[in-house]
């Protein structure tokens, strides 16, 4: 039976990294899911929530709960650990028992892409091909809020031509320093943290750094580009969707 998936694209992937979103659609269809996308969705409200603007975050949470309640899809899947984690936090925005239950239900239906593929569908080989030396950046919210550590690695190891290189133990789970508004409020601090991560990525001698969150990729990619590095930032969904036979 076909699994029906509703895509939670996230505003960042929608506008800045559409290839990640398109890649997610491609991969989900390839493993046999049907994919729908509700164009009424915008932002999950995380920037407001993380900066302390709870009423604004609550309004957007209510909206998104209603948008996804109108779908009877089997699961909601997102190419972002951070935004998935935000949906799981929705419950604490409400005091009303009804809204809390609705928020909880949305959180339970929503899955980050790699976790959905590996844990829900039991798929590790998605038929991808991506000839490159690559390393994986654990985005903090996926790693620590959702406990996603092995899933993307298992998927990447099955990608033809891809060689997964782990960062040094001290750097592998280190934050990239993005932190949403933190990267704007304290740019020097954010970049100081980022530089340690980028140093580790460059030391690993890879062609590509892969992550499950467009936000981290913006941060890491922005610094790699400024430092004139040849390492390219690529979203996990792009790698999994790829069928290329030559290096990117």
């Amino acid at each position, binding site marked *: 039976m076909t699994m029906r998936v509703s895509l939670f*694209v996230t505003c960042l*992937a*929608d*506008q*800045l*990294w*559409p290839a990640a*979103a*398109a890649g997610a659609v*491609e991969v989900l*269809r*390839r493993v046999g899911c049907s994919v729908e*996308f509700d*164009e*009424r*969705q*915008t*932002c999950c*409200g995380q*920037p*407001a*929530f*993380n*900066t*302390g*603007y*709870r009423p*604004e975050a609550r*309004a*957007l949470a209510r909206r998104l709960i209603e948008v996804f309640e109108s779908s009877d899809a089997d699961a909601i899947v997102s190419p972002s650990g951070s935004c998935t984690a935000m949906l799981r936090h929705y419950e604490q925005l409400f005091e009303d028992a009804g809204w809390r239950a609705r928020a909880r239900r949305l959180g339970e239906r929503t899955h980050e892409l790699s976790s959905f593929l590996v844990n829900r569908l039991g798929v590790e080989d998605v038929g991808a091909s991506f000839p490159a030396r690559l390393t994986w950046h654990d985005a*903090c*919210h996926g*790693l*620590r*809020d959702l406990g996603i550590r092995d899933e993307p690695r298992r998927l990447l190891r099955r990608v033809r031509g891809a060689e997964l290189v782990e960062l040094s133990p*001290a750097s592998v789970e280190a*934050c990239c*320093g*993005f*932190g*949403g*508004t*933190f*990267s*704007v*409020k*304290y*740019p020097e*601090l*954010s*970049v*100081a*943290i980022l530089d340690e991560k980028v140093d580790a990525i460059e030391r690993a001698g890879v062609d590509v750094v892969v992550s499950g969150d467009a936000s981290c990729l*913006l*941060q890491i*990619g*922005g*610094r790699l*580009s*400024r430092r004139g590095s040849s390492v390219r930032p690529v979203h996990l969904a792009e790698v999994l969707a790829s069928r290329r036979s030559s290096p990117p």
Partner: protein
Amino acid sequence: MSFERSARAALADEQLRGALRHATTLFGERRRAAMATLPDWEGARDRARAIKDETLLHLDRYLEEFTANAERAGARVHWARDAATACEIIGRIAAERGARTVVKSKSMASEEIHLNAALAARGIEPVETDLGEYIIQLAGEAPSHIVAPAIHKTRRQIGALFAEKLGMEPSDDVAKLAAAARRALRRRFAEADLGVSGVNFAVAETGTILILENEGNARLTTSLPRTHIALMGIEKVIPRFADLEVFLQLLPRSGTGQVLTAYQSLLTGAKRRPEDEGPAELHIVLLDNGRSGMLAAPVTRQSLACIRCGACLNACPVYRQIGGHAYGSVYPGPIGAVLTPQLFGLGRSSELPYASSLCGACRDVCPVKIDIPALLLHLRAEVVATRAGKPRLLERLAFSAYAAVMARPRLFESVVRLARMLRVMLPLGAWTKWRDLRPLAPRSFREEWRTRLRHEVAR
């Protein structure tokens, strides 16, 4: 100085950053190695947290039980609602005994109430005896780490300091520096009239206070002088003597990466007979100073579970870059960013809850599972709701506009389309000074979906 400015100053100090990188990395490695020696680390964390939760939910009764048992064993217990009262109590005890020199072992609570300044104002000389505290006292600085107060200093800087203050030959030999401090402090111990210590745990069941340390200075402080004053936050109490086990398993491993620190002193009252060793009097000062208010909600109450191990500092990417002084508080790092606003008011420290990328590494390493990111988010919401600190007019405007736009998908699309046309993207300067900004995609996903993707099927 604002957090922003002091953080920037710290980032420009290469020597400081080198010292921090070295120390926090080493602390992290030692902690992981020590963790592996306890078979059920997660179980121990859960037990410790459950004990703290139970205590905090009945803190009034456990404090009364502790007080009754400590007094029965011969201690005098004093209650201090705030820092000024605590300083007054300790200053008065010292003055009444004609004390001229007070030896102190490391106590974060005494830093919190600025006890040294209060004693000095009475003409009583406080002498810090923990090596790290001694170093920063000689340097006229504040501690920059909960466990290792002089973590920001290199051996060369300390050698120069000792040469100037102790008149020793300049040296960067760590053993020689420690020996010089030992010699200088032995003299102070010999003449001290009174000792002031902190408390790591206070057992309600027996009225016992427990002090952990490595150097032996706390043992000297609590054994040699005639009078011992122990200062403790009211959250230090735990119910039972047997509860000490799990905390003694967690604290040294998390703090210094040791299975056990060199010394634990378990003190129950003053000495019983004149011929016994130890101080004739033990005074215990219970300090509230804003703690009781934290009990009012579960999210803030967990702040009081902290056992001051410092693991969250070492794990924090922000602390690792800037060290403790930038936080402008005796409690730095992630736990400091949540304790400082609660203890000293949000108005004076409204920036601190924002001094985090919310990566969650602090929560992972916390031996009592304090959800520091949740606390940071809670305090950020308080900052916005109470309009604490600076006005944030632009920020408020920006988030109102953001919420209005994001509630309307068509408006959202038009705004992004306009931004793409004008090639603008917030937040510009702050971002692009050090990082390139990925441009908005020529076509958004939703446009791709509408025109192409929705019609396609699996390939």
